[in-house]
Each structure stands twice: as structure tokens, then as C-alpha cells.
């Protein structure tokens, strides 16, 4: 069950401009967490910002009782998060949300854009642990803004794309995705990244008839289902419904999601 706990900072470093890697000792969260789940972090002791901020679990080490986060500095919350030091304690709520589900005998292709690679690492670890084949397509803006690549490469095949072509293939993740799906080696896609990317990935999944699970983001207040603030529109038997990204998701079957225009 989810809980509120203090996590002790074990490592905290800037990997590339504005992108940080934070390792925490939080055994009770690590013990229960599954890939795709997240934690609500109290980033500041003041009311600036007022709310906790959600971050995906980037590593789940059940043996050592550790979790890690990968985050990009955006505004007040993430800026004050950069100030925490090794040995400090962070107030966490987690593990939250329903993560990726792994059907038996899946041949998975993982698609991550930018910060969206964060929840894919524990998924890759789990797939490897279960002896299931996978490939990962990781998209970045440019070579200076590439991070955590080795962590993925240790686990399996990785294709990198950059918008400017400064590393790997030039362009978007969707190009190698279509090519790889053409090989008919894969039967499931796991994707996390900007909404426009997810929308395109899910259209590609449909055209190849492949299952696709997407991890969505929404502005959250509670993170555990109480406020109904974080909804996205999904297709239900009864018609379009607002589902809670924090508890019904953040991972959804892409066929359930009603995407926005544009």
C-alpha cells in the first residue's frame, strides 16, 4: 500500500544542463513499487510551490531499498529540489498509480522522449529479469542533452534519435519505431514522453495492430485519487469519461485514450 515516508538522499547530481539524477533510500516504497509508478515529492518547505510534484520512479532497487528519480528543472518545485543534498530527507508519498502491465511472452519496444525515458528504465530491467526480449528507442534534442543512455544499453538494444542528428538517428522516435515494427518482431509498445509524441506513437501502434501502453502526465494536487484534478478523457463502455491519471493511470492502454486536437 502507498504511504508517506521520508527518503534519505544518497546521490544527487546534474547529468546534463538542468537534468538531475536523485537516488533515495526509501525501502518501503522500493519494496512495493512496480515500473510506471510514481512518487509525490514535497520539493519545498514553503508554500512556493504549494503542492507536491509527481516524478516517475526511474530505478527500483528492492534489494538495497533504493529508488531513483530523473528530473528536469522547470519551475519553482524542481528548482528547489535541486537544493537538496546528500543525507537530507525528502518527504515522499508513494508508490502511486498503476504502472505498466507485462503480458506473458511480450516482445516489447520501449519508446521514450526526453524525460519520458525515466519510467522506462525500471520496465527494461523487469523485462530483462523475466528474460523477455525488448528494444528501446530513446529520443533527445541534441547530444549535449543525452542522459542515462548507458543504463539502458546495459540491459538491451537501444536506438537513439536526436532532433539535430548530433547523436544516433536524426529526427523523431517515430521513424525508427515504424521501421522496427515493420520487422514484425514486436507485439507491444510502451511509451512515455510529450503528448504529441504519445499521440503519434499510438496512431502507429494502431496501424500495425500492436498493443500500446502510454504513460500520461497531468497536473496533480493529491496524487492518490481524492481531488479529481488530474483527469484525462478516456473511452468507456458508457461513453467518454474523465479518468484520474494518478490512480487509473498514469499508464493507459492507448486505445482507451481520447487525444486532444493539435
Amino acid at each position, binding site marked *: 500500500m502507498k504511504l508517506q515516508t521520508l527518503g534519505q538522499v544518497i546521490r544527487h547530481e546534474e547529468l546534463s544542463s538542468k537534468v538531475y539524477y536523485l537516488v533515495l533510500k526509501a525501502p518501503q516504497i522500493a519494496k512495493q513499487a512496480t515500473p510506471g509508478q510514481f512518487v509525490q515529492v514535497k520539493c519545498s518547505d514553503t508554500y512556493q510551490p504549494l503542492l507536491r510534484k509527481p516524478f516517475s520512479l526511474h530505478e527500483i532497487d528492492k534489494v538495497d531499498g533504493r529508488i531513483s528519480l530523473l528530473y528536469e528543472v522547470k519551475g519553482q518545485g524542481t528548482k528547489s529540489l535541486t537544493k537538496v543534498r546528500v543525507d537530507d530527507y525528502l518527504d515522499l508519498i508513494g508508490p502511486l498509480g498503476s504502472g505498466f502491465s507485462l503480458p506473458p511472452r511480450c516482445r516489447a519496444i520501449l519508446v521514450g522522449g526526453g524525460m519520458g525515458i525515466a519510467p522506462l528504465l525500471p520496465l527494461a530491467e523487469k523485462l530483462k529479469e523475466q528474460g523477455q526480449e525488448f528494444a528501446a528507442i530513446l529520443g533527445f534534442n541534441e547530444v549535449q542533452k543525452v542522459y542515462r543512455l548507458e543504463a539502458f544499453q546495459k540491459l538491451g538494444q537501444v536506438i537513439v534519435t536526436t532532433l539535430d542528428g548530433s547523436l544516433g538517428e536524426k529526427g523523431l522516435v517515430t521513424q525508427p519505431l515504424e521501421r522496427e515494427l515493420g520487422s514484425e518482431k514486436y507485439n507491444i509498445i510502451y511509451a512515455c514522453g510529450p503528448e504529441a509524441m504519445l499521440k503519434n506513437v499510438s496512431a502507429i501502434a494502431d496501424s500495425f495492430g500492436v498493443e500500446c501502453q502510454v504513460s500520461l502526465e497531468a497536473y496533480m494536487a493529491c*496524487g492518490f485519487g481524492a481531488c479529481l484534478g488530474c483527469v484525462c478523457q478516456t473511452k468507456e463502455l458508457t461513453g467518454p469519461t474523465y479518468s484520474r491519471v494518478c490512480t487509473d493511470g498514469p499508464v493507459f492502454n492507448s486505445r482507451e485514450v481520447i487525444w486532444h486536437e493539435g
Partner: protein
Amino acid sequence: MKVKMEVDIGGLKLQNPVLTASGTFGSGQEYLPFIDLNRLGGVVVKGLTLLPKAGNPPPRLIETPSGLLNAIGLQNPGVDYFIENILPELTSYQTKFIVNISGNTPEEYGVLAQKLSVPGVAALEVNISCPNVKAGGLVFGTDPDLVAEVISVVKGHTNLPVIAKLSPNVTDIQEIARAAEEAGADAISLINTLLGMAIDVETRKPVLGNIVGGLSGPAIKPIALRMVWQVAQAVKIPIIGMGGIVSAQDALEFILAGANAIAIGTGNFINPRVTMEVIAGLEEYCQKTKTEDISHLVGLANPLKMR
């Protein structure tokens, strides 16, 4: 010293004066991982309407300095679903469950009150911050006559204690409070959220899907406190104070201003254990100040007021 924490809010007997604010606490079960519901004074469940309500399009939330703007749009499964599927699960707790209701017309409030007058519901909180569909969308809570009408219809359909939840988006809160009291309300709760908005300068559009939303959290505390103070001068029925409470000290300010009980909303998001900490903090304060009964503190900030 044993402090008497029990309070009586217009016939609603609570083991302590700390409630949760509607819409921030689900049905209470969402908080089971964090707190013992049985230790709360009471839970005010998410606002219900007669028919299921889909709610507003996202984005529904945005933070502002020390505050939170929300435009949930009363998303809820409807009163019948609540009675059949949620209420039975709540009967295993000893805490009091107060149901918050919203209607489109006075008649709807009456039907809601009647349907909810069942075992397991300890009181009704009438959310009058809703547009009156019949009167061209005028918000009930801004017109004393409409407030009186809604409250008396509700009173006519239930024997449960009826709490009128006032909207702060009015010019004269005392006038509204008096109208609720005269119409038979057993207690008053305030404040609901303050109408506000935020604009994204990149897209040059309002941030919220609903354009405007309700402001809550520490940002509104001084306004809420002032309104509780004013209402305490205007009516004799008990008051449940809320708006920006995140600590025992905040809660004490409301009690000293004239609130007989308090409710915590947005504070639960930041610290899901805040209610427990506030209960402990209130008791500690009473012990420290040798106050035998927490109710002795009510309205003490006003030397003229003997309650």
C-alpha cells in the same frame, strides 16, 4: 488534564472539531493509507448531484502564489450510485460522514436531501455555490432569498442537521448567513473557494479548461478568517470555519474568530496527515493554556462576544 474535545454542531455531535473539506477528501477512503479515519471529527464527502456529472474539461488545476485554483466541475457519480455503492463501505468507520450536496434548482436540493436521509449519513452540507438553472444561472449563494429558499426546501425534506455552506463571492456575507439561519439552517460552514483565474502568457489563453476556477489554500486564509469573524457576529448557530488551514495554529485562529469546528481541504494534498496533526496540536494548546473544553476558546478574539 483531560481536555473536552467533543463539539455539538447544531445537533451533529463530533468527537473533536476537525473535519475535512468537501471535494478534497474523496469519500475518506482515499486517505486510509495515511490516517485513521476514526480519529477525525468527521469527513465531509465529495459534493454530490442528483445525476452523475462528468465535470469540467482539463486542465482543472493550477497553482498560484500560496494557493490552488481548481475547476473540477463537481465530477461525481450521482447520489444513487453513492447510496448504493459508496455509503455501505463507510459504515464500518466510527467517524461521522457528512454529505455535501449541489443542485440545479431548489427542488433538486430537496430530492437530494430526502434520498440522503438514510443511516450512515450524519448531516447534510448544502453547497449553495452553484448556479440556479431556473434563474438564468444566478448563483444561489449570492442572493439571500434564494439561500433561504434552498435551505428551507432542504429542511423540509430531512431530519438530519443541515449545514449551509456559504460562498465567499458576495458583497455582504452577514446578510447571507442571516438568511440561512432564518430559513432554519442548523449550522453554517464557510468559506467555499474564491473565484479566480490564471492566464498562460505563452499561449495567451486562460490556463483552466473552465477559464475560471476556485481559489483555495493558505492564500485565502485571511479572507476566510475575516468572513468567519463577521458571520460569528451575525448569527447564533454554530460555525464550521475553513479556508487555507494547514496547521493547528491556523485552526486556532478560526476558533478564536468564532468557529465551533474547522475543516481542512487543500492542506490534505500537501500533508495527508495534517488533520491528525491539527487535532493533536489543538489538544496540546488547550493543555498548555489550561483550557478544559475546546469550546471555551470559540470567539475569544472578540471581547464583546459571549458565546
